[in-house]
């Protein structure tokens, strides 16, 4: 069954067809949301909101790339979630035991992923990139994520963010400039390919 068949059946009220579309795109939606928000829980919330919003707005889909249309809903949901997070006061993580004493290393804080010694270079560069992504302004971050992580072309990104292609080009250019500057700030932590030698710096 093609994507278009699924869309038509979903439009007729077939929930299974709709859920098939969700399963087809949920990983992409979650990853985009995760890179935009840098928070698994917030990314999951944004993805769920996007799915609900897609269900409600399905009749407004007017053809074209369904993926772009859905990613537009996802980015809007991310914007909303980011605004909601910014309004909500942050609570510092202070794990306590049953007696109210602070715990040095709570079980839920353990990182079960491979340690730095196992995959040092990859971890470092991923952390550096994620950190730099987080420091980017939302409008630059979303364009960079859509182009470089999600693999969308300029026209699709323009459709997703509802801006002209010229805006996409300029935002992407600035986003990469800022990312490059940010990554250089990590200096020796990064693999050699991300460092500029003295000759290049001059």
């Amino acid at each position, binding site marked *: 069954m093609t994507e278009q068949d699924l869309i038509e059946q979903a439009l007729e009220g077939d929930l299974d067809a709709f859920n098939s579309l969700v399963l087809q795109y949920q990983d992409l939606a979650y990853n985009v949301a995760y890179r935009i928000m840098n928070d698994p829980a917030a990314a999951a919330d944004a*993805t769920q909101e996007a799915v609900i919003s897609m269900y*409600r707005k399905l009749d407004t889909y007017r053809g074209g790339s369904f993926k772009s249309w859905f990613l537009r809903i996802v980015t809007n949901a991310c914007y909303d979630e980011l605004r909601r997070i910014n309004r909500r006061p942050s609570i510092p993580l202070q794990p306590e035991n049953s007696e109210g004493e602070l715990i040095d290393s709570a079980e839920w804080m353990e990182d079960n992923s491979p340690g730095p010694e196992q995959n040092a270079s990859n971890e470092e560069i991923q952390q550096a990139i994620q950190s730099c992504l987080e420091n980017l302004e939302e409008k630059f971050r979303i364009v960079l994520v859509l182009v*470089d992580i999600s693999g969308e072309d300029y026209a699709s990104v323009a459709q997703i963010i509802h801006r002209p292609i010229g805006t996409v080009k300029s935002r992407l250019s600035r986003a*990469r400039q800022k990312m*490059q500057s940010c990554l250089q700030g990590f200096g020796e932590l990064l693999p050699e390919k991300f460092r500029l030698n003295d000759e290049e710096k001059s």
Partner: protein
Amino acid sequence: MKRQETLSQRDLELLNAYLDDALNEKERKQFEERLARSLPLQKKLKEYTQLKVALRELPKQPSPRNFTLSPEQARAYKPGPKLYPAFSYVALTAVLLLAIVFSSEFFFNQFSTPMATQMESSLMEEEPLAVKSADEKPEPLIFTWGYPGGMGMGGGAGGSGLGGGSTFTITSIDETVKVGGDEEVGEGIVTPTPEVGILSVPPDMGTGGGDEQVVTPSPEATPIPTEAEPPILSATPESVTVEPLILGLQEDKAGQIISTYPQLSDQAEKAEPARMWRTLVSDKVKIGLAAMAALFGILALIFYTKR
């Protein structure tokens, strides 16, 4: 020494487009020619390529759960009837009705303009009549005593001056002036008349008391015309009873119309409604339509943004 080439924002945008394969054939060839000659461009391309590859190589995060909707969720999130089109139609209809009402009233009043002008002109014609009638009205007299001794003297059996219980009747300047009555002559209504001047009463004329005094015009009681004051004693053929007299009015007020009847301002006020905007539909209906347009417009906007 070769000057260091600086890259503009436009260069960087072209570089990004080249990297993302977003240039057409012609643009790509032109850029490649330039890239072959430019070391800064080559360096930047290398940096951006590494960055792009690094971003692409970021590990994909598996979805923590399925985001599919259960039948219960689907029922809960089922889109309701779309109310915003209906609301927007109602708001639009109300606005159109308002526009029709106002434009109809505008054209109605435009066509009625000649009639209004006619009414205005008739009013303009009436105004001189009003002035005329004011002129025809018997005017109050300004009475100035020629001698200080004549002012307020009297009362009872006062020897000089006009006062006391006398009545004071002026028939004309050439006729008998009666002085006497019960009221003290101290004040009076003062209105100038063009025919006569100030009546001077010599002190010896004043005979107070309750007796009726007859003042016969004589050389002693002749009008004294002044330049500053207009003539103030009316020489009307019939007798005029002056009660009471006001003395000492400001000279610069002499000769002015104190009041007319009917009042000119009253006429103007009565004429005003004829020149006002005439309405075809009551204000309540207009307010209702405006309120409906505003209410349903806001509702349509709310439902549109929340859809």
